[in-house]
């Protein structure tokens, strides 16, 4: 076994996350093998996801090497974490010293586990504590360095995800010292990631030293990476530098940088796509950035006046800066030229400067012209709408600045001119003009600004859509999607029009796929409302296909989670009908059905499972679902309801394992309800295909018994005979285990007994049946000899005695009864021979003979105690022979009046009075019944029949026409009863009384009390609940209360969809829905 384990571990590539290569104390040459065991266990957890097996391995190791407990605890903790049993993992942690490396390893594994489970705060707390313990330490051991580095990196990612980029960036500073000379690539990546985090942090800060410092550091990191090589990190560094420019307000530099490197980024993107790493592509980042720039420009152009003026001034100030820089250059070159000429003059040499005299003046002229143009623009802006007071200062300073520049240029000594260079001549693309124009645009007329803004928005949308559709499932795409929504809203706000996207062939679908995937992301994060929005948006353009189907399935679940039940139903109907048969859709129903099942929301899980069964009848789980629904009803003893589902299963799913089980259940359901003909049908079908075993034997017994109960003794006999034949061979196919043998033995006994019993009942009257009766007696004798200890043995003797009596063989009968009393003195039959005789005669359907025996007993009443007359009476009462029963009960009362010593009169008299009341009521003698019951109630106020007697008395009084008194009797029940079942029953009786008295409102209130307060799953209450609902619907309908009709009808059809009256209720509901909108009244 151990060898096998080792071989297995060698075959598996394992991770060793926690417990390195440390050898256990006191270990021997077996250490490498032990190490492999630990690796193997770790692999079981992390690779094969079998934590249970791993724990067993640890159990074994701990037994053999108790000193390794600390190590095994680590592995156990890993197993707990894998199973998400974090609390148990923490408890394990408490058993290991806190500062031990092992404890720390478990701690971090636990933190990771919490992270995976979405418990971010706990994760953060553990990591923060860990790093706080190691504030300044830089480990030297390589393994520990690696571990520390990995932990620091992981934590930084968590901090980033938790939206704390500054802290995340700070963690990187702890990682850098841990990198070695071979980690150059890793260093580039980390530098770049840190830069990105710093920029994220900077964006959230106001202008100031802190922000500048972060930007500076980000720039330094990015520069380092850019100059370090041409790889993925290079691309991202370019994007980072562009961000830096943006944050510093240098939009054009950002754009220029991106455009300059765009081709390179695109090639990188292609290579990354091929490698399946498109989500890392900096090209997407660059496009997004360009999108953002254009969007921002659009926003500024349409912002409020104050914002626009501030932005305009910013551009105009930059324009002024450009002019100043240009002048500074012109002046420097001119001064240089002048210096050359001066030197030549001093040296008395000749030097010719480039350009004609006119050309040499041109830069000055052009500059002054441009600067004056700028000044005019400023004056124009001032004289137009003017500037708001908020920016007056700034505007004035700008004006002065420009004027001063013009003066400086004007007064400059131009006699030598300046060497004409292209960069001294401001052309159309001169930055000063560009900035100036931009500034003007921000304060231009609304129409012009709107036009410019829309063109920027269009450009932004183009960039964003490129990202959105090109990088599905990435953060880029998600952000781009959000940006697109914002831009579209803004455009609609500005123009009143919707933005429509004219996509190329397949473009709309491509975009829709991305939208749907975004929906999946939101769904997986449990942001159901947002997921719904995305799904509906995506399905708009991409309504059918595999991806939309997955979306619809998730949408169904979203509606369930947000409790939008109307939308849930609509979506379910659509999914089942339009996509019927599709396994993806089927899965959605099972998933959401399960959700409501676990919530015990019967109404909704039934609805979903029924849609599933309608839409996906061929799905592999359909039979299971039907069976499960049947079992749900079975559990609450709603056999009628259960059979509906089993029948559906057997009709359609004959080749599934549940087919036979369902047949068996059908048989049992009818059998338990006493519907023997149908029980026969059910069991017969089951038996036709069932395999040999105890279940089959039991079913056969019930089949035979059902026939017997129906009086079809010949059929019963045949099946009993077959059954005994099956089970006679104890080593046969039916005996699959010891337990089966035991159960089969019990079944055999019963079958064997009833063989004789049926034989006897099959016998014709008189001589014709003599032979059969003789056989029956012989058979029963054999039974008693074979199974002397069986509980049926006394009954067998008693039956033999009864047959002998019928045959007129009284002496033999007496001998048998004597044998009964001697051999089975503890049995009831043994103790009361005459009673046993009577019972047997009743059981073998010789009721007249039984009454003769009773008559004999009554003639000799003194010989029999009161309780025997009571039992005799009950035997007759059970067979509906109430006349005989009443006589027996009356005899019992007479005997009690004579009061024999040793008889506990109280018990027996109560039972007699109760039973007498029942029989008299059954004989339609309500007044006499009431007399007996009143006596019971008065003489025995604390009787166990307290409630039952009152129910019966109430009925008797109603029968006698004393409705008021009947109501009074029920009042007692209400006063004393605490059991909800009794209260429900009493309420039902009360409602009937109220109806009989014409008090419809009272009856309705009573029924509604049951509907609102009862638990319909209680098998005793259920029939009352059903009646109450039905009557409520009926009475509400009579009263024209349509809303109540609908509500109660819905409950009825939901609970009792196939019950008697269900169709009528459905018709009433439809009528009510119509009536309540048209205001009709009930009939």
């Amino acid at each position: 076994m151990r060898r096998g384990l080792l071989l297995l571990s060698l075959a598996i590539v394992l991770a060793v996350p926690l417990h390195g290569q440390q050898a256990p104390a006191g270990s021997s040459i077996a250490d490498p093998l032990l190490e492999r065991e630990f690796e193997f266990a770790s692999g079981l957890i992390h690779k094969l996801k079998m934590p249970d097996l791993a724990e067993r391995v640890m159990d074994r190791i701990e037994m053999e090497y108790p000193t390794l407990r600390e190590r095994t605890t680590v592995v156990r903790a890993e197993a707990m974490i894998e199973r998400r049993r974090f609390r148990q993992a923490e408890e394990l942690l408490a058993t290991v010293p806190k500062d031990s490396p092992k404890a720390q390893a478990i701690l971090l594994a636990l933190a990771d586990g919490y992270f995976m489970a979405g418990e971010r705060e706990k994760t953060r707390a553990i990591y923060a504590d860990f790093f706080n313990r190691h504030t300044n330490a830089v480990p030297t051991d390589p393994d520990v360095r690696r571990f520390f580095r990995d932990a620091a990196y992981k934590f930084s990612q968590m901090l980033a995800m938790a939206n704390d980029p500054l802290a995340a960036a700070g963690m990187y500073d702890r990682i850098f010292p841990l990198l070695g000379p071979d980690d150059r690539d890793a260093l580039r990546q980390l530098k770049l990631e840190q830069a990105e985090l710093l920029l994220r942090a900077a964006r959230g800060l106001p202008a100031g030293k802190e922000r500048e410092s972060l930007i500076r550091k980000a720039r330094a990191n990015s520069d380092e990476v850019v100059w370090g090589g041409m790889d993925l990190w290079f691309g991202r560094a370019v994007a980072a530098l562009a961000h830096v420019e943006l944050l510093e307000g240098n939009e054009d530099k950002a754009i220029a940088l991106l455009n300059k490197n765009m081709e390179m980024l695109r090639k990188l993107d292609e290579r990354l796509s091929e490698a399946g790493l498109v989500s890392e592509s900096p090209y997407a980042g660059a496009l997004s950035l360009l999108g953002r720039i254009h969007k921002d420009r659009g926003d500024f152009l349409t912002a409020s006046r104050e914002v626009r003026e501030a932005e305009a001034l910013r551009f105009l100030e930059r324009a002024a800066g450009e002019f100043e820089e240009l002048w500074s250059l012109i002046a420097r070159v001119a001064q240089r030229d002048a210096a050359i000429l001066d030197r030549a003059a001093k040296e008395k040499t000749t030097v010719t400067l480039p350009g004609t005299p006119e050309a040499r003046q041109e830069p000055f002229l052009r500059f002054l012209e441009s600067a004056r143009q700028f000044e005019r623009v400023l004056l124009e802006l001032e004289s137009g709408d003017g500037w708001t007071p908020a920016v007056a200062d700034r505007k004035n300073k700008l004006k002065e600045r420009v004027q001063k520049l013009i003066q400086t240029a004007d007064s400059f000594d131009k006699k030598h001119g300046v060497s004409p260079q292209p960069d001294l001549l401001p052309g159309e693309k001169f930055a000063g003009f560009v900035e100036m124009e931009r500034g003007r645009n921000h304060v231009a007329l609304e129409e012009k600004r709107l036009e410019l803004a829309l063109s920027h928005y269009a450009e932004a949308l183009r960039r964003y859509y490129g990202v959105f559709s090109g990088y599905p499932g990435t953060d880029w795409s998600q952000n781009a999607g959000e940006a697109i929504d914002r831009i579209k809203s803004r455009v609609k706000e500005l123009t009143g029009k919707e933005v429509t996207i004219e996509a190329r062939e397949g473009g709309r679908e491509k975009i829709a796929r991305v939208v749907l995937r975004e929906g999946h992301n939101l769904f997986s994060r449990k942001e159901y409302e947002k997921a719904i929005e995305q799904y509906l948006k995506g399905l708009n353009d991409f309504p059918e296909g595999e991806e939309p189907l997955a979306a619809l399935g998730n949408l169904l679940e979203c509606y369930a989670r947000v409790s939008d039940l109307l939308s849930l139903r609509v979506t379910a109907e659509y999914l089942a009908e339009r996509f019927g048969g599709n396994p993806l859709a089927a899965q959605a129903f099972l998933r959401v059905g399960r959700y409501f099942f676990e919530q015990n929301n019967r109404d909704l899980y039934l609805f979903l499972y029924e849609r599933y069964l309608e839409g996906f009848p061929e799905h592999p789980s359909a039979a299971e679902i039907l069976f499960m629904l049947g079992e749900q009803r079975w559990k609450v003893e709603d056999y009628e309801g259960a059979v509906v589902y089993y029948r559906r299963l057997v009709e359609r799913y004959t080749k599934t394992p549940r087919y036979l089980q369902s047949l068996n259940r059908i048989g049992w359901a009818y059998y338990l309800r006493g519907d023997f003909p149908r029980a026969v049908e059910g069991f017969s079908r089951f038996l036709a295909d069932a395999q040999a075993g105890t279940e089959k034997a039991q079913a056969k017994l019930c089949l035979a018994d059902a026939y017997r109960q129906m009086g079809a003794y010949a059929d019963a006999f045949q099946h009993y005979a077959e059954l005994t034949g099956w089970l006679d061979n104890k080593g046969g196919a039916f005996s699959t285990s010891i337990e089966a043998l035991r159960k089969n033995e019990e079944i055999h006994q019963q079958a064997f007994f009833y063989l004789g019993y049926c034989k006897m009942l099959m016998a014709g009257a008189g001589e014709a049946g003599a032979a059969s009766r003789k056989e029956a007696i012989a058979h029963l004798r054999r039974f008693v000899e074979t199974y002397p200890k069986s509980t049926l043995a006394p009954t067998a003797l008693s039956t033999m005695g009864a047959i002998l009596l019928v045959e007129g063989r009284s002496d033999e009968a007496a001998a048998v009864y004597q044998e009964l009393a001697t051999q089975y003195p503890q049995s009831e039959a043994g103790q009361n021979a005459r009673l046993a005789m009577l019972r047997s005669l009743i059981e073998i359907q010789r009721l007249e003979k039984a009454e003769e025996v009773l008559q004999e007993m009554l003639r000799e009443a003194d010989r029999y105690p009161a309780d025997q007359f009571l039992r005799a009476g009950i035997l007759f009462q059970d067979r509906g022979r109430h006349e005989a029963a009443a006589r027996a009960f009356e005899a019992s009362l007479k005997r009690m009046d004579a009061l024999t010593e040793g008889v506990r009169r109280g018990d027996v008299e109560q039972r007699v009075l109760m039973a007498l009341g029942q029989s008299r009521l059954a004989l339609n003698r309500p007044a006499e019944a009431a007399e007996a019951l009143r006596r019971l109630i008065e003489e025995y106020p604390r009787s166990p029949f307290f409630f039952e007697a009152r129910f019966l008395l109430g009925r008797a009084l109603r029968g006698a026409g004393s409705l008021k008194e009947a109501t009074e009797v029920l009042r007692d029940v209400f006063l004393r009863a605490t059991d909800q079942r009794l209260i429900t029953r009493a309420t039902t009786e009360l409602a009937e009384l109220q109806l009989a008295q014409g008090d419809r409102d009272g009856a309705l209130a009573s029924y509604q009390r049951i509907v609102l307060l009862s638990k319909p799953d209680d098998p005793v209450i259920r029939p009352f609940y059903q009646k109450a609902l039905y009557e409520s619907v009926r009475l509400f309908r009579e009263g024209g209360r349509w809303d109540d009709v609908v509500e109660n009808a819905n409950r009825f059809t939901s609970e009792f969809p196939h019950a008697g009256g269900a169709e009528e209720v459905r018709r009433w509901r439809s009528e009510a829905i119509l009536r309540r909108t048209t205001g009709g009244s009930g009939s």
Partner: protein
Amino acid sequence: MRVRRLAAQAFAVFALGLEGAWEGVWAGNPIVVLPDGRRVEGREVRAAADGTIILILPEGARLEYPKGTRVIMDEPVAMGQALERMRKKEYDEAIRLLQGIVEQYRFLGWDLKALKYMGLCHVEIGRWDEAIRNLDAASEGAADLTSDEAMRVGLARSLAGLGRRDRLDPLLDEMVRKGTRREAAAAQVIRGRVRLENGDIEGGLFDFMRTARFFREVREWVPEAAWRAGETLERMGKPEQSLEFYRQAGQYPESEFGVRAKTRLEKGS
């Protein structure tokens, strides 16, 4: 010669100067398509009263083919005119033109198309019986027309108009489950209306809601679906939920339901 050989290999009857009762029209560039896919070009084509197709070859010879043989020819001028009238909603005039095509092109294929459009015209003016007659005749003659989207929708509308649930219900079921998106949308709205009429308010609502929500691309039916969903929700005492659908319907001002929705929203606000 080739044509003659082809004709001999097919089941044509070669007859010279045979004068039989015939109906038909001189149609430009007729081509007879044989069951095995081969084509025979002619100069003229006619159909006899019993449906026999008579093809006059360019050199004047005459071939006969059994009824039901596929014929390809230029579209009759009247067809374009009729369709134009339909676009302008001049249905009676369109019917008149189409009737002419049915008579002139009987058994030649265009009659079935004309029957189809006649049926659709009748649908638009609510002559359900005639619509059904025409559409049934068209689909009986051409198997491909039985799955024609416009015809199925037209047929469903007509059957609903007449209350012919025996045919309507299975048709709607088929359209919803397996039809094109347009068919499904149409069938759902029609079924929704029928359900409402029969007191199944919830069933009707579900049909309207699902069309409005999941079939937005079928602009022809969505305004009605949205309007009716809103209206039904309001009837059921759920005015807040109805607003979503009224707003949706209101996005189609060109539709009568869009106008109704806008009015309703204005009244409510």
